[in-house]
């Protein structure tokens, strides 16, 4: 799976896990901040994102400092998935 395919898949997971009503993958910009952006995600969503990465890609984020550098936007998360996925 190339990076673009991972990105599409991740956006679909994002919509499902966070139950983002009335939002399509195309509407989620790659470089838009997930928190404090138009999506308006909050701290509970950050936990949902950690669960998503664990379940779908086998990636565990344990260190909060590391988490803050990964969970910035779609690009940073997809970069981390491509490099660290175990499934």
């Amino acid at each position, binding site marked *: 799976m190339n990076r673009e395919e991972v990105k599409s898949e991740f956006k679909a997971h994002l919509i499902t*896990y*966070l139950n983002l*009503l009335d939002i399509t993958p195309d509407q989620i910009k790659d470089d838009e901040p997930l928190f404090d952006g138009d999506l308006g995600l909050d701290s*509970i969503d950050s*936990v*949902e994102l*950690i*669960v998503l990465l664990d*379940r779908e890609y086998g990636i565990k984020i344990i260190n909060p400092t590391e988490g803050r550098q990964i969970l910035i936007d779609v690009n940073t998360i997809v970069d981390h998935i491509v490099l660290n996925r175990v499934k």
Partner: protein
Amino acid sequence: MYLKDLSSVSPQVTYTEEFINGDYIIYSKNILSVIEPSYSEIIPASLLRRMGKAVRMGIGAALPLIERNEKINGIVMGTANGGLENCINFLNQIIEYDEGVLTPTHFVQSTPNALAGQLALMSKNTGYNVTHVNGPLAFENAILDAMMFLEGASNKTSLLLGAVEEISNYNYNIDLIAGRYKLENIANNDLITSQTNGSICGEGATMFIVSNDANDALAKIINLKQINFPNQIDLEQLLNQFLIENDLIPDDIDLLILGNNGDVQFDSWYVLLRSCFPANMEYVYYKNFVGEFRTNSAFALFFATQLLNGRFHNHKGIQGNFRNTPKTILIYNQFEGIHHSFILVQSPEPE
């Protein structure tokens, strides 16, 4: 305790006047899901996306009341199961993900008091906030709590009182295996005359503004009584005692609202109750509108209030023997012959 305002989200279109004005939905299957209002106009999308159905429809029923009634001093809810679908999803995830990391949303939404908490947050209400979870008598206990609270409160104190129950597919199947629902499909307008075991499944949220102030009241909840595991003699004695406590005789009741649910195993309780009243006593059923669920006595109270205010005459869905606008209504409901309740409601005319 006076009832000042009410709202319901149910399998009928009760959040507008449509149902009250005579429209009645007939379902051909045994699951009666609620007809929901458009939530996007009343609930912010950021909150709505996290809400389970119980919370969503509870808020859909309660928010119009909160908007119409500025001063609400507390929130008292009743629910047997709360956010059942989220609860079961959460429990299944524990197994599915081998007790690994679990998502918080399902857990938060599954707690029975999620609705009361969410309503408090949305309305910035920091007052009394309690959710009763006493199975099929959860709403009755919520009423009792509200009555006691208002009795000890200063004048013109108001509470948001309500009940919510949702259908979960998992639980429907479990209850079906347990014999609670009919194996054959039956239309809800044929429910009362059904001669088979089990009932049909419903869900809903019904909300009231109750107060110790009589001004502009729609109804007065006089008293309620509940009993578990009675035999027939116990129930008759309880009814007599209840009427005496409220200075009534059977003839004083104008209308019975009965919780018949078409289950031949248990509907004989309603025959017994009717035998305690004069043969010409008027009565109506309500589960033909909303199906069976554990807190549907809240819908019965909604129905009673509308009847006391002259509604439902010539309604095509009404089943029973109902001719005159009542002044005093006795609601009797029971669940599987185990949990029984009486709720006495009167029109709030000056005494």
